[in-house]
């Protein structure tokens, strides 16, 4: 499922990139116990919910988190750390990159586009959630896809179906998104790499190529459930 050295998650804001990136890094840790696994939080657009929030959990799993310089502070300054270059210098590492949402979030990747294209083997996955109000049609997804590719200077290699409405999601909600995802992949001319789904729902959908994930509600960070 994650068979490239670098996996990049990009897409519309609120599509679930951060949660997927954290789950992906943990999955890589499990599959490659002897490799350095890096989770690079490159979201410098949204200072509220970020991979960096999970730094303690990830450190406990021996995953290196590279976060924006002012992550989790009161300073809303979009600065990336030089440490990000270690993703490219350390060719034996495995890296997961969590980009910010939309084209505005994708600009941060532009600095590394040349390194990615010429010196790395990567997947850039377009994260799509049918239940997000601004990406309910394949046309709107394709529009955002193009905007992100222009901003990042990197093109997508596949689509991830992350259709959900939070912890209340049912297997039927996921099934209801499949027709839409089929049209998204056709219009964007990209393969569907997997459908991500809460681990406890996975057994309901054996016919799908699923990636079982742990889901964190955004409110949980603040004691709201």
């Amino acid at each position, binding site marked *: 499922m994650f068979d490239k050295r670098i996996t990049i998650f990009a897409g519309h804001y*609120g599509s679930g990139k951060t949660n997927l990136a954290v789950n992906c890094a943990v999955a890589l840790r499990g599959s490659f116990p002897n490799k350095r696994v890096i989770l690079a939080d490159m979201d410098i657009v949204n*200072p509220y*919910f970020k991979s960096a929030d999970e730094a303690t959990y990830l450190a406990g799993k021996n995953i290196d988190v590279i976060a924006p310089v002012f992550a989790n502070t009161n300073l809303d300054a979009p600065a990336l750390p030089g440490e990000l270059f270690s993703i490219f210098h350390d060719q034996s590492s495995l890296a997961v990159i969590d980009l910010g949402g939309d084209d505005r979030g994708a600009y941060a990747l532009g600095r590394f586009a040349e390194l990615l294209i010429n010196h790395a083997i990567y997947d850039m996955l377009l994260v799509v959630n049918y239940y*997000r109000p601004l990406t309910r049609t394949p046309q709107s997804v394709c529009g955002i896809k193009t905007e992100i590719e222009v901003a990042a200077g990197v093109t997508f290699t596949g689509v991830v179906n992350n259709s959900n409405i939070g912890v209340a999601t049912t297997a039927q909600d996921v099934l209801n998104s499949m027709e839409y995802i089929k049209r998204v992949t056709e219009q964007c001319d990209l393969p569907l790499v997997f459908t991500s789904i809460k681990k406890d729902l996975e057994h309901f959908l054996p016919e799908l190529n699923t990636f079982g994930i742990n889901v964190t509600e*955004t*409110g949980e960070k603040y*004691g*709201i459930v």
Partner: protein
Amino acid sequence: MEKVLMKGNEAIAEAAINARCLHFFGYPITPQTEIAAYMSRRLPKLGGVYLQAESEIASINMVLGAAAAGARIMTSSSSPGISLMSEGISYIAGCDLPCVIVNIQRGGPGLGGIQPSQADYFQATRSSGHGDFHSIVLAPNSVQEMADLTGVAFDLADKYRMPAMILGDGILGQMMEPVTLDGIGEPVTYDKPWATTGTRGAREHNIINSLILKPEGLEQSNFKRFERYAIIKREEQLHEEYLTDDADIIIAAYGAASRVSKNAIKMVRERGIKAGLIRPITLWPFPAEAFAKFADRVKGFISVEMSMGQLIDDVKLSTGQKRPVTLCARTGGMVHTPEEIAKKIMAADKGEWQ
């Protein structure tokens, strides 16, 4: 009713569009920027106007102009930006114009920080500008309510010809929850015979103005406005009660703090402590009657707020200080844990009300 997954900020924006608000003037500031971003994507496609002004001062005066022309209009900001708007909000109130203003609060004072806060309670309920006036203040505590109360805000603003504010915070603005927008229904619309829509030579000019040259006239216009405020106080109080029927201790909390408080109440109830919650949904008019009716039957009240004792004043005023009222405060972008609220309730249950 199909659900979608939305951020609180997006829910406000989409609900405003549902309420036929097709014009938006604003200026970006964390943690409310998604409202403007959403409007910038949607409004041009609907034939409306999205304009990023050069400042919050310009935004609020554009709001005044659009409201005077009879448009349903909204702006949004976060704490420091609302301070900048305060002169314009007072002018809007003085002109008896309806509009919706969203404040997704962050830590203060000053530039403060970008994390959630409720420290603009006094500003919203007491003095969102100079002079004798009020804004209707609505305090959602979920993403669904961010949507629902936005519709209510437009309705009340038009009904009473005054500013209505959605007072949220960074948590509510940023968190995502399932929402349905189907239940909101068709917006209530109002005739606006006072709007400056052009006379076409067929009627007298409508004049929108907050300058009244004679003090006698200014006093009369204030009296008239306060007659309207009296009706609003009587008819528009909204609140929610949670486990109050048998409660010995009542928590007062609104917005995100009320969600954390509910978790704390569940925790102490497992230990046999009868705590409940009164959640003001309108902060102005304050649901004073809801609190007053408990003043004779509970041990006391705890004001759980992300501010240094602002909501607590309204709890004291509405309960006549018949019972102790104590404060459980976090501030500066910090948020209560359910555990620390539970500790405060357990202490109060033992008679410790400091």
